[in-house]
């Protein structure tokens, strides 16, 4: 584990063609890391995420992504992810291959990945059309009861990227509030990057907090507000107005491209981005 800048972490650990999981279930979504991947022009990425959210809408619209594995691709509480829709419906900026699951299936896949198992089982997908279109949904028979259950393969990304509240100077990471699949995304991945709100000498005890030890993390980056417009419980609240505003920004290709050029490509890092869009990172 090393404490480095987000620019260096992405440069070193994220490569063209990698499978990436930027996770965070509405809480702690690593938006700053997504921006840096766009800035560094990564291509042909296979993105994995339960809820693609704005962070993947931006990566897809910027042409970084050739494949998406997901379970719910919307703008929570607002509506569609326009760039995701445009890619699927109109192949803009290019075709997007999709692998579609349910939340329960994705959670099972991450848990299997974290546990070093090749697959996981669940009571899922039965009677739905998903297995007709998703080849990674199969079945297994219980060797004791004969029941047939859904089987899904483990997810083991090349890089798992999350945002968290805190790290200490040796790189132990502390997360509280909605935990999502943050732990599983890191443990299932070959490499991992964690952006944090603050780096402290010693982690104070926090009710409901979990700790990921430094030795399962490759890079810790200090990026205050790095989840925006998502949030970090104890440090910020969800910027619902930004989620609503994103619908208009992303509906039009030119408006989207102009936004990315100005606020992401036109800025050197997340703090410049924050100034540029007028929020305090």
């Amino acid at each position, binding site marked *: 584990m090393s404490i480095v800048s987000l620019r260096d972490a992405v440069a070193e650990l994220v490569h063209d063609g990698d499978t990436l999981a930027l996770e965070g279930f509405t809480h702690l979504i690593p938006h700053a890391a997504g921006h840096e991947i766009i800035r560094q022009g990564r291509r042909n990425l296979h993105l994995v995420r339960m809820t693609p959210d704005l962070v993947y809408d931006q990566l897809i619209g910027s042409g970084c992504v050739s494949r998406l594995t997901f379970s719910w691709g919307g703008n929570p509480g607002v509506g569609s992810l326009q760039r995701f829709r445009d890619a699927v419906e109109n192949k803009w900026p290019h075709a997007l291959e999709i692998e579609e699951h349910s939340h329960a299936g994705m959670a099972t896949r991450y848990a299997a990945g974290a546990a070093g198992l090749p697959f996981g089982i669940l009571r899922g997908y039965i009677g*739905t059309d998903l297995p007709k279109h998703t080849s990674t949904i199969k079945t297994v028979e219980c060797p004791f009861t004969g029941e047939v259950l859904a089987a899904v393969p483990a997810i083991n990304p090349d890089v798992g990227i999350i945002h968290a509240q805190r790290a200490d100077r040796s790189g132990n990471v502390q997360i509280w509030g909605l935990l999502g699949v943050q732990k599983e995304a890191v443990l299932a991945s070959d490499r991992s990057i964690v952006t944090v709100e603050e780096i402290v000498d010693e982690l104070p005890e926090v009710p409901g907090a979990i700790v990921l030890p430094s030795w399962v993390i490759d890079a810790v980056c200090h990026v205050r507000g790095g989840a925006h417009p998502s949030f970090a419980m104890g440090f910020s609240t969800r910027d619902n107005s930004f989620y609503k505003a994103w619908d208009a920004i992303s509906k039009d290709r030119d408006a989207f491209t102009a936004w990315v050029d100005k606020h992401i490509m036109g800025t050197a890092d997340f703090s410049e981005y924050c100034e540029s869009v007028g929020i305090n990172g």
Partner: protein
Amino acid sequence: MAEYTTDELMIVNAARQLGALAAAAKRQCFVGIGLPSTAANLARRLYPIEPVLIYESGCIGSKPTRLPLSIGDGELAETSDAVVSVPEIFAYWLQAGRIDIGFLSGAQIDKFGNINSTVIGSYESPKTRLPGAGGAPEIAASAGAVMVIMRQSARAFVERCDFRTSIGFGDGKGDRERFGLRGGGPKWVITDLAMMEPDPDSCELVVEALHPGVTRDQVSAATGWPVRFVDDLAVTDEPTDIELDVLRSLQAA
């Protein structure tokens, strides 16, 4: 009599149903954002025995003081009895059969209560790409019973869904048993025009009640299959001033 919107009408009728279920010890409610979350939170404020709100973000027993925009709002975690990981909420809580009522909505629902929230048109080249499954397929499979809230129109209430994201009664009576599903499937479909329930013999959705001022013709015109009405067709009560006041103060918070 106070004025009210059709959304308020749906929300109030859903809250009444949840209140009745909670009184009958069916309290654990797996709720999505939007109308379901609003209805469940309204029921928490209107009835002595409160529904227990469970969100797929891992919140168990949430008591939000204001309505969340997303299932991940911090408010939900801060007011919960317990917060667990996403793998746990689906495995230990939903899949294990601890949820009495699952709350769903969608872009299309068909006459057997199957729901589409994936695509309009073909999957390969969709006319409209929708957000997708989320937690719905397993909620529909595992919840003790499912409540659906949707605005009714012939485009949304269809003979057969373009894509079956979440199973209701499949192709009719007996399919859930054949699939070995543990949950009871859709029991209440609440729309802006009427209340529908599966016919005990065929499992086809039939109209149990009309909302005040709504005609059979309106419902038939807004349904994509030749919808049937029960003999003793009821009319739902107008939302009361109390129901509307509590709902509006909740939405204003």
